[in-house]
């Protein structure tokens, strides 16, 4: 699905991302961990062609993401509130995103039925614009908008951070389902080691822009990660 070739990005003399080689196969579910400033979000932005790499290239389905726009049709991402259109109601935003993928309103309405328990009554018909929702609920809108695009590649930046515990476990369930049933390739970053080892089959540990560990999740992974992060 994704191939990263020798990609590098430097901000003010500090290395933000420096990845020699990385392959992500279709259907993999991958967790990205690392302390703040390790380059997780920058890496996401590079994959989404939102910042220009200093060197190297990223291929999505063997096509360079900078020269072709094809990846947009099968990639959905939510990194932060900057992905939401703050002055729309959640419904309007879902319809807008849906329409960009040529899905009808009725289709979206039906799809949103599946999110009723995840939304917990706080999002649909809330009578609020997205900017007036709480941060956690904004995150839910962003995640739902990604999933309704029915993407082949889903990218979420710290999806657990702003969610309440029940929503966290619902999200985990959803991600596992998407992966099992649709063979969706999923890339998430998180600080929550328990969740990430629970969801992901493969874990990339980033430090100072480099991927210093590439682990297939096993019994020991959680311990290994915990010992790395121990101060």
């Amino acid at each position, binding site marked *: 699905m994704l191939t990263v070739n020798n990609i590098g990005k430097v901000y003010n003399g500090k290395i933000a991302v420096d990845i020699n080689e990385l392959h992500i196969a279709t259907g993999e579910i991958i967790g990205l961990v690392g302390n703040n400033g390790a380059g997780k979000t920058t890496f996401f932005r590079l994959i*989404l062609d939102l910042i220009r790499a200093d060197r190297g290239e990223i291929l999505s389905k063997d096509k360079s993401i900078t020269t072709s726009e094809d990846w947009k049709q099968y990639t959905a991402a939510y990194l932060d509130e*900057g992905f939401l259109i703050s002055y729309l109601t959640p419904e309007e935003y879902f319809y807008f995103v849906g329409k960009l993928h040529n899905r009808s309103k009725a289709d979206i309405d039906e799809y949103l039925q599946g999110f009723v328990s995840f939304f917990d009554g706080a999002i649909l018909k809330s009578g609020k614009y997205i900017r007036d929702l709480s941060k956690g609920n904004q995150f839910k809108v962003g995640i739902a908008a990604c999933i309704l695009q029915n993407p082949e590649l889903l990218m979420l930046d710290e999806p657990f951070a702003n969610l309440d515990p029940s929503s966290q476990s619902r999200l985990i369930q959803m991600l596992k389902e998407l992966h099992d049933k649709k063979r969706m390739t999923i890339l998430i970053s998180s600080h929550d080691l328990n969740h990430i080892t629970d969801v992901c089959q493969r874990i990339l540990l980033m430090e100072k822009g480099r991927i210093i560990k590439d682990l297939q999740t096993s019994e020991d992974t959680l311990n290994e990660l915990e010992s790395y992060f121990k101060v």
Partner: protein
Amino acid sequence: MISLLLSHQLKAFWRSRNAGKSIAIQIFIGLLGLYLLAVALFVGFGLKSFIIAVAPGQNVVTTFCGFILYYFSFDILMRFLLQELPTVAVQPYLAQNIKRSQLVNFLNWRSLFTFLNLLPLILFIPFSITGIGKQYGAGVAIGFVVSIISFCVVNHFLILFIKRKTVISSWWMVGFFIVVILFMFGDYFHIFSLQNVSAYLFTGLIKNAWLCLVAIVFSVASFINNSRFLFNNLYVEEMSKSSKEKTASEYVWLQRFGHIGDMIAVDIKLILRNKRPRSLLMLSFIFLAYGFIFYKQTYFETNMLGMVLMGGIFITGMFMASFGQFLFAWQSVHFDGIMASNANIKTFIKSKFYLLTAFSTIAMLLSLPYGFINWRIIPIQIAAYFFNVGIHSLLCIYFATRSYKGLDLGKAATFNYQGTGSAQWLYSLAIFLVGGLLYLPLGFFVSPWAGIAAVGILGLISFLLQDWWLAILTKEFMLRKYKILEGFREK
């Protein structure tokens, strides 16, 4: 305590993110402010000679007295449009150990720092002292100064009160404008005369200077009224937004345009639901009235049609320019999302082009009635319209691809230079240069009508070549996409 809070405001002013960024803009605004101040001072001190020049043979003092209320009624309207509610300033203090009454006082004090309060003082006080004081003595002069300051305070707090009320219910706004319009009609059709009322009141003040106490009472009442209202409504939630239910709305007629229509619908919502673009839109309607200034009969008599064309470009293009100067920057907060979404860049740019075209079309249609002044305005305006949709719009998009400053949608529009950079200045310059270059050769050497035809026809041809242009603009956008994104992310 209040002085401490006010000092925070001073810091907020100097340390605001766009304060230090562009020195050129700071200097420009500073010079503009100084210039306005100088003009006001000049008018203030020269008021006597102005009155003699404008109303020769009239009693200077009576004319002055008759003018004061006119000014203050105009002042109310101006304040309604320009004066800001300093509510956000109080947010960080609400949960601190500060008494509510202190916060209300702070808000009241904070609100006083606006040039709208300085202007009437500069205009009226010099004459009150040099003109009236000389003739009637210091007592009367003090009476005048006190009254004028009081009127200023009355207007100030009255408008704060009305504006806060309009935040809660927009009926207050409707009511306010109905009252203003009734006043204007009443005065215009001589049902009553504001001038006479004003002259009566202020000449009365000359006889009995102590009457200024009445003005003080009014100002205190207005102050207390506003404070009481604030005291009872000091909840961030109620101040910052109305509690009205927000519902999803659809623009069905836009849907047949596919993705372009969907994007335009989002842009329309952007304008209607955010403070800064909304107030800009309101101002744009005022720009439509500029025709009364630009379309002078003398231009037609002396065949200076180039001036009329310029006015036409301004009137049919102002809508477009005021939105277009921040074409992408309006969406700076979620530009990441737009670029990562399944929105084709060319479609995105095309949607902007259509939106700008629609703006100009609306302005053109709304300004057609100027034809009643002189039928020649209509063909000139149509030529100006073609220029705007065919050339201005493209320049607008081009300069948007060179504009890297984001902005905050929630801030007020007046005197807000956030997001303004060199691109905006170059943009307005370019419109005039290109317009002039197209008009002048034929307009100057052949005839004004030939120049106007050239502008219109070239505009139309360029409009018909839109696909070719948009492909170029898309390329231009792609060249600087990362720089735009980076600039917008930096807040």
